[in-house]
């Protein structure tokens, strides 16, 4: 091969890369991008631990991110804390469950990460950062260690004390997975999004609670036509458990109101 052949080969490679890189994408402007557990659960490229205050602030600071979903659990003192797992042992330097520990005990706990983020209360979050955004609260109804049900009134009074029932600057969604909690939350003035796993659950729920705001579904559980059916009932629809480019693309193609993604950057690349 002479030098000109190498040059031609180089040009072909470069042009191919540019063509692949610049291909036109479908428009998904109306679909919101929401960070699952703030910047994603168990995601390699995340700087901060999921559900930490730092992760929430980082997610909200990324251009194109429309909000965050966070996991909420009640402490022994009746305060709402951000934490995903059932037990503290794996991810933090604490032991046991959130509901077994007092606020002062939880305040001393850090995640086992390089940044050693502290566990955060819901009240620790700077709510002014949420202006124009979406805040999804995935609220646990069972205490992991004892298996007892959480006192729903205590949860609602906590949310009310923070003024979240009357917020107008941003949207607060309560994600519930226990149907007995739907009526008390709707009664307290909250937007309720119920987690469902098949169409039968949707039909049951819509008949029992017609004023429910929307539904949260796993991407793998629902096809595009089923999503359309739910949206045609005038209910909001949010898809979660997506992280790979292929999964994100499939979720966006189903045209939900928002995707609750584990990889915000990958989702933004697919969206824009």
């Amino acid at each position, binding site marked *: 091969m002479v030098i000109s052949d190498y040059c031609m080969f180089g040009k072909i490679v470069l042009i191919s*890369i*540019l063509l*692949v*890189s*610049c*291909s036109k*994408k479908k428009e998904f402007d109306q679909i919101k991008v929401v960070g699952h557990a703030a910047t994603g659960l168990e995601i*390699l*490229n995340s*700087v901060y631990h999921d559900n930490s205050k730092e992760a929430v*602030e*980082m997610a*909200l*600071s*990324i*251009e*194109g*991110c429309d909000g965050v979903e966070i996991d909420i659990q009640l402490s022994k003192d009746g305060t709402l804390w951000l934490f995903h797992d059932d037990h503290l042992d794996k991810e933090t330097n604490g032991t046991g469950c959130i509901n077994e520990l007092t606020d002062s005990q939880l305040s001393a706990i850090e995640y086992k990460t*390089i*940044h050693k983020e502290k566990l955060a209360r819901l009240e620790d979050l700077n709510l002014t*950062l949420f202006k124009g955004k979406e805040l999804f609260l995935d609220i646990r109804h069972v205490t992991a260690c004892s298996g007892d049900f959480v006192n729903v009134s205590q949860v609602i009074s906590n949310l009310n004390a923070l003024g979240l029932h009357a917020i107008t600057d941003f949207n607060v969604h309560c994600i519930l997975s226990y149907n007995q909690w739907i009526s008390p939350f709707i009664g307290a003035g909250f937007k309720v999004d119920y987690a469902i796993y098949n169409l039968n659950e949707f039909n049951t729920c819509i008949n029992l609670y017609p004023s429910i705001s929307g539904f949260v579904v796993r991407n793998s559980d629902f096809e595009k036509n089923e999503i359309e059916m739910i949206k045609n009932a005038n209910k909001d629809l949010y898809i979660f458990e997506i992280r790979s*480019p*292929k999964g994100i693309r499939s979720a966006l193609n189903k045209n939900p109101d928002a995707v609750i993604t584990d990889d915000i*950057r*990958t989702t*933004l*690349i*697919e969206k*824009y």
Partner: protein
Amino acid sequence: MRYFLYSTIFFLINSIHAKSQDSLNNSIGIQLGITRLDFFTGFRYARSFDKLVPFCTAEMGINRTIFQSRFFPKLGIGSSYFVVNKSKLKIGPQLSFSHSLLKVNSASNHYHNWNEVYLGGRLEIGSKIRLIIEANSGLLNERYYNQISKKKEGLNSLGFNGNIGLLYVW
């Protein structure tokens, strides 16, 4: 930071010493690696001064560029110092710096930038055609436009990469 400063001084001192050596080799190769950001593949050029081998790399992120149609380039420089420098086996530490950029949100004018300063180890097996294996870890600095503060901000965390590849030496 002190860790990187000492390493840099170590490499500079050795590069002065290495310039007096006769053996001079060029190598070009392809490599495939994993980082916290993506899988990367690309080219590597190096010129050896006895035990010291400065190099430069040009790579692209596979997932972003190929599977997401968003060009994700990365350029790097660095130097290896082979403490084991046999004709068919070379092992030693290396220091590297790389910069990558990606337009995450194409509706925006801002790029995400990543700077990586890594210290690690490198193994080369073979003479004319060499298999390379390396692993590095260190500072991963991410710079991006913060839509709340309306300015570019940086975040530091621990990064790593692992590469395998093939080199042609002449």
